[in-house]
């Protein structure tokens, strides 16, 4: 209690120091006055009375000092003085300060930004109670350890409450919600009955969905739905009576039963969901298709479960292994399927699920870790650089420090004072970096999201990020400050004082540590440059790959036609009419439709395609297209003719093969006019052979592909993508196309527009992110290294002014002086480059899996990196060397 009171009063005293000092002085004065008065009364003279009063009092100054110590924190005052002193030192050399702070801000800012991305994507657990009890459950097989569930499999596992307290299946899905002007697309999720019990997340209003809601046809009043707080605020305008109102989703009324608070994050933290409906509503949402009707054939659900308290993950896994076979027998009424599954070593497995499930995480975990290490290397480099510069500065202050040591300053005090300077730099740098980090991490998150409109990565700064930043700042302070401070105060003061600035002791000139630091910096810069070079070369090769079609000027409009009334030939006629209308918009040169957009990763294939000449069944990627597809995408027709709208459901089924598909199905034959049979048994007449394109990804070689006409389509209410080749800008077209859809198909949600260039960029966004960031880091590293090389050499040369003057007075030519100074850095750069090259050669293997068509020892990249570093180092070293050569011997000697 006493201690707390003292602490509080000391804190208060901190802010009232001057006032309290004045008060103490007044009190002490009054004390002396009273004593003098009493002494006078005893009959002393004025002089005697005063002397006696002061003698009785003891030392006034000592009393004041002790009083202050009792009042506040003397160490704090010392620190404040040190900081003030450091601040003045920094202000005296603004160039150095700005460089130092910016360097550190770059390093720390980049690290913070990347770390908050890693935090949001990889580290942060779901904001639910006891997130560590959550587990992700997979229906694993040898060839696919992270496979999801079919509805049949999940229902059989769900019943087993002995392993998990609760388990739930979920799947994200955009939903069509009826608004005032037709249907709008809203991101949502389908969740099984125990989903909210697994997450233990209380609703903001109403109730959440329970197993009673997840039944065929829903409860008594149809299906219920839970909405997010954000959706409640925008769609329902925060209406207090929202619970119980109807919401028309996929043309079917759902009853809103509850609202989840804004803080709620569902099981896929990187995928936004505003509406949650029971899994049994899937046939409604997915109409005219149904995963539920497909039973065990369609794998579409992800499973998250909560372990019983006290059950470890290993125990859960053991229990899951034990029930794998019984559940399989229970779920699947197909002996062959079960036999196949057992052959593939089917079993349920559980993995830690605290962070929920995220596709983005799977895709970006490794790239982010690579980038984070590069980023860390850059920060290390920045710190090394500052340490070198501070060391050079401290050397310049050697005499001052030696004098102060001689006058009795303790070494600890001096180190503390020098550290205050680096603390200031680190603090300023951290603050600047922290201010910039959110913007950077948000734009990186947007880059990672690609074309996924509902992706979200929460990069907000939380406690973990702040701890990370604080740790970094402390580490940086120590790294940039401690070595220079210890060295600067460790020198023999006699040497320092005896010798003037004109004779730099040889010992100092050949000091190893500063050079090792600079060489390390050069090595790090080279490693970063090589990494950036490799990733950029790989990206350039990805972009340079011939895709087989021309993506520039292509715009896609994706429709969702599942919930409108047209079907079959009537729908095909609508597509044709819409295509004609689009064709007449300004700037449009041709229009077509496709089922799957190349390079989006979403493909469709048939593994049972055969011809009389093919070697059994072949796997062929397929796409549904409209006439003019090849002209619009600029895929060459090598033989035969394009589809026509007249190739409709009454005509003979037709097919177009890609060149490699024709070779595979008709080796050594002319495919044109021949017949191909799919796994359903339908035979198609080959009417054309066209060029190969990269259908699945840029990385994968041209796929074996076949095209079927949408006019002969077999699917109900199929949703296609209109592909437009443009002559003009895309923006006016977007507006025109949207109003066209509004007129021709009221009620159909506005089509989603993407440009093919966006799709292309998004398909290699991880490569883009790595290349962009690594180039940024490498550029910063080179710049910082150049500053470091220049700065340290400039300091060292300035200290040698008189020596150089003497040399020149004795006849050294200017070129010799230039060479002498330049060589100082040349050795450092050469040694650093060599070390960096060795490490890069050995370490670049870690990048191998990220590179496309690029060897990890690509000679051009290695040579280019060394050349870039060499030229920058030369430029940075030449400047001080030239300046040294301009020294006038007379002036230099006179200065002593």
């Amino acid at each position, binding site marked *: 209690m006493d201690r707390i009171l003292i602490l509080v*009063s000391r804190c208060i005293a901190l802010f009232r120091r001057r006032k309290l000092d004045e008060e103490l002085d007044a009190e002490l004065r009054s*004390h002396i006055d009273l004593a003098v008065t009493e002494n006078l009364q005893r009959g002393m003279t004025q002089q005697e009375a005063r002397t006696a009063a002061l003698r009785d009092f003891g030392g006034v100054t000592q*009393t004041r000092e002790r009083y202050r110590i009792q*009042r506040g924190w003397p160490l704090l005052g010392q620190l404040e003085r040190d900081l003030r002193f450091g601040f003045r030192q920094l202000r005296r050399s603004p160039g150095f300060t700005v460089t130092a702070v910016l360097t550190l801000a770059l390093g720390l800012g980049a690290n913070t930004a990347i770390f908050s991305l890693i935090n949001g994507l990889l580290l942060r657990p779901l904001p639910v109670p006891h997130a560590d009890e959550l587990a992700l459950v997979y229906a694993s097989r040898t060839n696919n350890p992270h496979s999801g569930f079919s509805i049949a499999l999940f229902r059989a596992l769900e019943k087993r409450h002995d392993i998990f307290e609760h388990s739930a299946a979920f799947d994200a899905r955009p939903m069509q919600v009826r608004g005032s002007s037709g249907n709008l697309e809203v991101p949502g999720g389908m969740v099984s009955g125990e989903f909210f019990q697994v997450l233990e997340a209380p609703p903001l209003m109403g109730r959440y969905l329970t197993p009673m809601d997840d039944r065929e046809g829903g409860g008594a009043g149809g299906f219920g739905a839970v909405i997010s707080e954000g959706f409640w605020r925008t769609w329902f305008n925060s209406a207090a009576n929202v619970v119980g109102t109807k919401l028309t989703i996929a043309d079917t009324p759902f009853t809103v039963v509850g609202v989840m608070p804004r803080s709620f994050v569902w099981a896929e933290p990187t995928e936004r969901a505003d509406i949650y409906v029971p899994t049994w509503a899937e046939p409604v949402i997915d109409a005219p298709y149904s995963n539920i009707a497909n039973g065990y054939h369609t794998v579409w659900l992800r499973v998250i479960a909560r372990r019983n308290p006290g059950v470890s993950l290993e125990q859960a896994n053991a229990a899951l292994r034990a029930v794998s076979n019984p559940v399989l027998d229970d779920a699947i009424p197909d002996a062959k399927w079960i036999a196949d599954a057992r052959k593939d070593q089917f079993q349920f497995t559980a993995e830690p699920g605290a962070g929920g499930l995220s596709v983005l995480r799977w895709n970006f975990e490794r790239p982010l870790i690579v980038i984070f290490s590069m980023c860390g290397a850059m920060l290390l480099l920045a710190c090394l650089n500052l340490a070198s510069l501070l060391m050079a500065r401290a050397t310049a202050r050697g005499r001052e420090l030696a004098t102060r040591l001689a006058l009795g300053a303790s070494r600890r005090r001096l180190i503390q004072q020098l550290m205050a300077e680096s603390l200031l730099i680190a603090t300023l740098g951290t603050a600047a970096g922290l201010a910039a980090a959110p913007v950077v991490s948000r734009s990186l998150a947007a880059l990672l999201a690609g074309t996924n409109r509902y992706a979200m990565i929460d990069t907000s700064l939380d406690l973990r990020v702040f701890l990370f930043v604080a740790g970094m700042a402390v580490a940086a302070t120590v790294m940039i400050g401690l070595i220079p401070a210890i060295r600067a105060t460790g020198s023999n003061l006699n040497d320092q004082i005896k010798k003037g600035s004109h004779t730099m002791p040889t010992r100092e000139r050949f000091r190893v540590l500063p050079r090792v630091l600079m060489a390390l910096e050069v090595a790090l810069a080279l490693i970063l440059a090589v990494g950036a070079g490799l990733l950029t070369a790989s990206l350039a090769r990805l972009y340079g790959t011939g895709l087989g079609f021309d993506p520039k000027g292509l715009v896609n409009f994706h429709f969702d036609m599942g919930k409108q009334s047209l079907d079959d030939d009537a729908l095909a006629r609508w597509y044709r009419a819409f295509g004609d209308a689009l064709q007449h918009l300004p700037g449009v040169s041709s229009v077509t439709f496709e089922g799957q957009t190349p390079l989006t990763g979403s493909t469709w294939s048939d593994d049972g395609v055969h011809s009389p000449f093919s070697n059994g069944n072949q796997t062929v990627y397929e796409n549904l297209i409209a006439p003019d597809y090849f002209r619009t995408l600029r895929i060459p027709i090598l033989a035969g003719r394009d589809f026509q709208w007249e190739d409709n459901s009454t005509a003979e089924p037709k097919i177009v093969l890609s060149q490699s598909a024709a070779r595979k199905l008709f080796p050594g034959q002319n495919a044109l006019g021949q017949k191909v049979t799919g796994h359903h048994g339908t035979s198609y007449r080959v009417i054309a052979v066209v060029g190969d394109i990269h259908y699945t990804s840029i990385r994968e070689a041209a796929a074996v592909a076949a095209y079927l006409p949408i006019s002969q389509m077999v699917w109900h209410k199929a949703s296609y993508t209109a592909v437009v080749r443009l002559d003009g800008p895309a923006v006016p077209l977007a507006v025109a196309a949207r109003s066209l859809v509004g007129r021709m198909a009221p009620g159909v949600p506005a089509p989603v527009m993407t440009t093919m260039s966006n799709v292309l960029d998004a398909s290699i966004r991880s490569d883009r992110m790595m290349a962009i960031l690594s180039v940024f880091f490498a550029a910063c590293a080179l710049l910082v290294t150049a500053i470091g090389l220049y700065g340290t050499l400039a300091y060292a040369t300035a200290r040698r002014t008189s020596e150089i003057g003497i040399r020149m007075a004795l006849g050294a030519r200017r070129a010799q002086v230039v060479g002498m100074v330049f060589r100082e850095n040349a050795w450092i750069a050469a040694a650093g480059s060599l070390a960096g090259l060795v490490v890069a050669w050995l370490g670049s293997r870690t990048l191998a899996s990220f590179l496309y068509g690029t060897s990890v020892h690509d000679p051009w990249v290695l040579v280019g990196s060394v050349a870039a570093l060499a030229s920058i180092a030369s430029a940075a070293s030449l400047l001080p060397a030239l300046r040294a050569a301009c020294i006038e011997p007379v002036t230099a000697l006179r200065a002593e």
Partner: protein
Amino acid sequence: MGGDKSDVLQGTLDLMVLKTLESMGPLHGYGIARRIEQVSGNSLTLNQGTIYPALLRLEQRGWVKAEWGLSEANRRAKFYSLSSIGQRRIQEETENWERTAATMARFLAPSN
């Protein structure tokens, strides 16, 4: 800090101050110092200045209060007085001191 002849044990000085204030009522620093000197019968030559850190310490603990006022000679001086906490603590501190003194006395008594 230590070493000075006229330094008094910290706790001892605190208790002397408290006792002085208890018997004399509100008093300024000089008065407290003089009173302690008088009571000790000049066996204790106090560096009067040491009284001030002690007073601050007591003030920080909330045992004494300080107020500016006028001295008998019409001079401005800071007057210290016991707070209610201080009044309560005096008893406790006195007992503490007596215990310590008794213990010391037992150590110092000739053993027989």
